[in-house]
C-alpha cells in the first residue's frame, strides 16, 4: 500500500508538472492576435473556407483565425458581443443574417473594390455585404421509394396529408430558416404557418441538411428538403455508384427551389479593417471564385464568367425562384413562425 501511495504521489507531481507545461502552451496558443491577422466568423462549410483562407494567406501573408459554426449561431454571437466583438469578417450561407446585422448597425460599409466585382443584385442594397456564392434549395428523393412522376410540383404540397411519414427536414439547420423566409415572402405569413404545421405532422426531423440527404440516400424517407449542393457533396463523398438518391428541383420557379445568396461582411467594430476589406474583396476575386466553383463545394459563384463544376448543371438551367434580398427579410419572422409551428 505504501508503495502504491508513493507511486501515486509521484504521479501527482508528474501530472502537476504536465499541467504547468500545458498552461504555458495554453498561453502560447490562446493568443492569436497580432496586427497582421484577421478573425473570420465562418458560417460557410469549413472545407470551402479553409481552401479560400489558405489561398488568401499565401497571397497576402495575413494570418486568418477561423471560428466555424452555424451562420445563425455566429450572428447571435455577434449580436451578444456587440462592439466588443473580435470578429473582423462575418461569412455566412444566407443573406437574411446579413440583413439583420445591417439593420442593427453592426456592419461596416464595404469599399467598391469588393462590391463592384459581382452583379448588384447579389449585393447588399446598402453596400454592407457582398454575395459570395449562390445555392438553390431542392428536394432529394429515393427512387426506391418514389418515382420521379410522383414528386410534388411545389414544396407547399409536402404539407398535404398524403406525405405523412415520407418527408425529412432539418428545421434547425441555418439553411431552413431562409427557406421559410422565402415562403413568407411568396405566399404570406399565414400560408407559411400552415405549411410549417403540415410539415410538423408529416416530416421526421433531422439535425442538419447533411443528415437529411444521408437519410434519403439510405432509403429511410421518400424525400428531403435540402440545398442542391448537399446532394452533390454526398455523391462525391461516396461515389456515384453507391449513391441511391436523386436530386429534384421544383419546376416553374416554385419557392421550393429558391436561390439563396451566401455573403460576407466586415464588422463595424473590426480592429483590422483594411485586412478585413482585403479578405472580403478576395472572396469575390477570380482566384477565390474559381476555388469555389471548381472544388467540391458545388455552390455557384456570384462572379460572372467563372465556369461551374461540370458535375452539376449551370444555374440558369435550374431556373430557380428569385426573391429579392430585401423581401427575403432578416430571418426574424421566419424564426417566429418556426416556434409557433412547434418545430423549434
Amino acid at each position: 500500500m505504501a508503495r502504491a501511495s508513493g507511486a501515486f504521489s509521484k504521479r501527482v507531481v508528474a501530472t502537476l508538472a504536465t499541467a504547468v507545461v500545458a498552461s504555458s502552451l495554453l498561453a502560447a496558443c490562446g493568443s492569436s492576435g497580432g496586427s497582421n491577422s484577421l478573425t473570420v466568423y465562418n458560417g460557410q462549410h469549413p472545407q470551402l473556407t479553409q481552401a479560400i483562407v489558405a489561398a488568401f494567406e499565401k497571397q497576402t501573408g495575413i494570418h486568418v483565425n477561423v471560428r466555424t459554426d452555424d451562420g445563425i449561431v455566429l450572428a447571435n454571437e455577434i449580436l451578444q458581443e456587440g462592439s466588443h466583438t473580435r470578429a473582423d469578417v462575418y461569412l455566412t450561407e444566407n443573406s437574411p443574417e446579413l440583413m439583420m446585422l445591417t439593420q442593427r448597425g453592426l456592419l461596416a460599409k464595404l469599399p467598391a473594390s469588393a462590391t463592384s466585382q459581382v452583379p448588384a443584385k447579389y449585393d447588399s442594397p446598402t453596400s454592407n455585404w457582398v454575395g459570395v456564392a449562390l445555392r438553390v434549395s431542392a428536394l432529394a428523393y429515393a427512387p426506391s421509394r418514389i418515382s420521379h412522376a410522383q414528386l410534388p410540383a411545389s414544396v407547399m404540397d409536402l404539407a398535404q396529408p398524403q406525405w405523412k411519414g415520407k418527408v425529412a427536414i432539418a428545421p434547425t439547420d441555418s439553411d431552413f430558416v431562409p427557406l421559410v423566409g422565402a415562403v413568407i415572402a411568396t405566399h404570406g405569413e399565414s400560408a407559411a404557418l400552415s405549411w410549417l404545421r403540415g410539415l410538423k405532422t408529416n416530416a421526421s426531423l433531422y439535425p442538419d441538411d447533411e443528415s437529411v440527404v444521408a437519410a434519403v440516400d439510405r432509403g429511410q424517407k421518400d424525400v428531403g428538403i435540402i440545398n442542391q449542393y448537399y446532394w452533390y457533396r454526398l455523391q462525391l463523398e461516396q461515389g456515384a455508384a453507391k449513391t441511391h438518391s436523386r436530386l429534384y428541383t421544383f419546376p416553374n420557379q416554385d419557392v421550393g427551389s429558391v436561390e439563396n445568396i451566401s455573403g460576407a461582411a466586415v464588422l463595424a467594430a473590426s480592429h483590422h479593417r483594411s485586412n478585413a476589406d482585403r479578405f472580403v474583396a478576395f472572396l469575390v476575386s477570380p482566384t477565390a471564385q474559381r476555388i469555389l466553383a471548381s472544388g467540391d463545394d458545388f455552390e455557384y459563384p456570384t462572379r460572372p464568367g467563372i465556369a461551374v463544376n461540370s458535375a452539376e448543371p449551370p444555374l440558369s438551367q435550374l431556373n430557380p425562384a428569385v426573391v429579392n434580398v430585401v423581401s427575403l427579410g432578416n430571418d426574424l419572422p421566419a424564426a417566429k413562425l418556426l416556434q409557433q409551428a412547434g418545430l423549434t
Partner: protein
Amino acid sequence: MTVAAGRRRFPWVLTASSIAIVAALLAPLVLVVVQAAQSGWSNVWEVLDRSYVATLLWNTVRLAAVVTLLAAIIGTGAAWLTERTALPGRRLWAVLLIIPVVIPDFVLSWSWSSVFDAVHGFNGAVLVMTLHLYPLIYLPMAGAFRSADPGQEEAARGLGLSLWRVWWRISVRQARATLLGGCLLVCLALLSYYGAFENLRYQTFTTAIFGELQTQFSPGVASSMSLVLVAISLFVLGGEAVFRERGRVDRTGPLAQRALMPIPLSGFRKALALAGIVALVALALGFPIGIVGYWMVVGQSSGLPAAVSLGSAVGYTVAYSALAAALATALALPVAMLAARHRRRWAAALERSTFVVQAIPGVVVGLALVFLTSRYLFSLYQSPELLVAAYALMFFPLALVAMTASVLRASPRLEEIGRSLGKGPVAVRLRVTLPLLGPGLAAAFCFVFLSAATELTATLLLVPTGVQTLATQFWAYAEEGVSFGAAAPYAATMIALSAVPAYLLSRWYDHRFRGDPSGRSALEALT
C-alpha cells in the same frame, strides 16, 4: 497542547475560501435566472407556454421512466451476480461492467447510428441510454450487496426460498434506497446529455436549446428553456439526496462485517448467468469499440478538413483538461478539509451544496458563462481560461468525492504528532499530510481530467476561436452524417482516454475500498 488549542480556533480561511468556492459553483444557476429576467418574464412565459415544451417534457419523462426501469433491472441483476454468486471471472466482469458509462454518450450513440439506421428516436434512445447508464445502478448496488448483512440471505435460503426469491425479497429489498438513488442518477444523466440525442434524433430539452440557438435571434429563448431543464434537474437531485441519506442508514447498522460466502450456481444457472453478463458486456462495451475499430479500418475519406489535426486536438484537450483537473482539485481541497476537520452541520451543508452542480447540465453552464463574460467580463469571453474554469466547475463534485476518504485519513492528530517530534509546520505538511492526501488528490485529478477530456456540450459553446478539442472535432465529423471514417480516430482516442484509465482506476478502487461501506466509489459520479 498549544497546537491543540490552536486547532479549536474558528477556521476563518477555510470557511471563507469554501464559501467563495460554493458561490462560484452555484453562479450559473443565478446567471440563468438573471438572463431570463433580463429578457422579460412575459417573453419567458411565451417561450414556455407552447405545446412543443409539453412534447419535450413528455419525451424526457417517458425516456427517463423506461431507461431507469431497464437500467435498474440490468444493473441490479448484474451487481447481484458479480457480488453475491460464484459467477466465474466475477472480478473481471465487475470492472468491465463499469466501463460503458465512461465512454462519452455521443460516441456510444454514434457507434450505433453509424451502422444501424433503425437505432433512432425513442426506441433507439432507450437502447443506447440503457446500455450506457446501467453502471450507475450497477455500481451502488454492487456496493450495497457487498456490505449487506449476509445473515438474512442465509436464513432465507435455509428456509428453502429459491434463488430468485432470495434475490428479490432479501437482497434487493435491503438495498431499496440505494436502488432508488441510483435511478435518480440515471435521470440526472439523461437530462444533461446533448450529443447522444442529436445523433439519435430524439428531442429533449438540450437538443431544443441548441435548436433555439440555431434558429432564434434571442439568447433569452434558450435561457428560458434552460430554466425548465435546471428546475427538473434540481427536483431529481433533491430526490437523489433524500434516498442517498436513507441508503446510508441501511448500510451502516452495527453489522459485523464478515466475508460473504458467494452463492453457488448450478451448471445450467451458471451458464445462463455467464451468457447474460457476456452479452451485456459485448453489447455495451464490445459493440462500440468494435464499430470504432471497424470505421478506423474502413478509413473512409472526408471532404471536411480537420480544422486542427488529431495531434493538435489531443494537445488542446490534454492541456485544457489537465488545467481544469488541477484547478478543481485545488478548489475541492479546502471544502473537503473543512467538512472533514470541522464536523459541524454548516460545514457539512456547505460541502453537500456543491453537489447541486450535478444538476446543472453542460449546456446551462455554457450559456451562463457566455452571458456572464459577453456582458460583464469580456476579457474572458471565448478564452481558454473560461473553458478551463467551466470544466473545473462542472466536475468539482467528482474531485470532492474522490478526495474525501484521503482527507479523513490525513487526520490533524498525525500532524500534531509530527509537530511534537520537533518538525516545523511546512515539513509536517510535506512529509505527513501530503503523502496521506496524495492518493485522493491523484484520484480527484484523474476523474476530472477524464471527464473534461470527453466533454462536448459546454465545449461547443465556450471553445476559443481556432481551437478544436477531440470532442468538438469528432462532433464536426459526426454531424456531417457520412464522414464515419474521419470521425473514428477521434472516437478511438476519446475511448482510449476514458475507458483505459477508468479500467485501471476502478481496479484500484475495487482493491482499495472492498469491504468499506463508506467508500462510495467516485466512479459512481463519473458521467
